[in-house]
């Protein structure tokens, strides 16, 4: 099963075996326990609930404690469900990065960094006005749209709260899976600040393989 929960450690660059020097994000992933196996008959859909991260016993709610007891696993901080690539996974099992291999494609889900109340330039890539020659419009959103409409169209892009959104990076290449240290290295950036929870799933879109790669 190529699904796992982890913690974003940060970014660096590594040499691959074929000599490429690639930017990677390091994820401390697993070991996760399978907290529950949801079935079509009982719950209406098939899924696997994975648990990750240590937690103080006093912080576990009684409801969750019951789930952990049923699966006979340690209490964990995060529980997330996965619905793809879950054949043969049963409650009580342990999931590690050992099931990943270099070259696998994964999607990584996280909560993006918060930017607070951000203007149009940062939030929507507006181009902004001229800096000099008396332009007087620097970082303002400027026009609100067509004057003929006589109103502002709903859903137009304005300044506002930016970040802290659930964000998915699709089709990332696994560069290395280190089962001894529970590390997963994926190519490129992933959403969220360091130490944040990230969900790694088997990629849902067809893999595009470059010729000769």
């Amino acid at each position: 099963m190529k699904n796992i929960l982890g913690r974003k450690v940060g970014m660096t660059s590594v040499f691959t075996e074929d000599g490429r020097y690639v930017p990677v994000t390091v994820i401390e992933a697993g070991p996760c326990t399978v907290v529950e196996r949801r079935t079509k008959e009982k719950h209406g859909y098939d899924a696997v609930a994975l648990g990750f991260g240590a937690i103080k016993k006093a912080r576990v709610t009684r409801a969750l404690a019951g789930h952990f007891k049923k699966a006979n696993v340690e209490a964990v901080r995060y529980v997330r469900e996965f619905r793809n690539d879950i054949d043969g996974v049963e409650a009580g099992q342990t999931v590690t990065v050992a099931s990943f291999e270099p070259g696998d494609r994964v999607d990584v889900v996280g909560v993006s960094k918060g930017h607070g109340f951000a203007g149009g330039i940062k939030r929507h890539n507006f181009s902004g006005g001229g800096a000099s020659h008396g332009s007087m419009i620097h970082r303002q959103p400027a026009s609100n749209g067509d004057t003929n409409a006589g109103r502002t169209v709903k859903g137009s892009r304005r300044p506002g709260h930016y970040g802290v959104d659930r964000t998915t990076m699709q089709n990332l290449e696994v560069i290395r899976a280190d089962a001894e240290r529970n590390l997963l290295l994926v190519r490129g950036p992933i959403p969220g600040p360091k130490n944040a929870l990230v969900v790694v799933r088997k990629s849902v879109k067809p893999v595009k393989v470059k010729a000769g790669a």
Partner: protein
Amino acid sequence: MNVIDVLNKEQLKDTVPDFRPGDTVKVYSKVVEGGKERIQMFEGVVTVRKGGGAHESITVRRVAHGVGVEKAFLLNSPRVDRIEVSKRGIVRRSRLYYLSDKIGKAARIKEKKATKA
């Protein structure tokens, strides 16, 4: 030490010799040609040495068939097989960008004589 520092450290080679800009080096790099791997040598003057840790790189300059050629190598890359120092030069800059404007006699670098030990 955090995980990223450990990962970076693991990539460092312990075989990189001691050299600086101005020195002449031979870089033996692995190239794949027609599905086969062979080792190619490139000799020239080190004009730039920059970056730290696993990312450290050098630029090597030579004049081949009357044309100046500069090649950049990542020192810790597995594609760089080995580096040999053939001459030590005396220079007063850490980045020898001025060499690319000079040709022939003007592009010479004073050679450091081995000190008597």
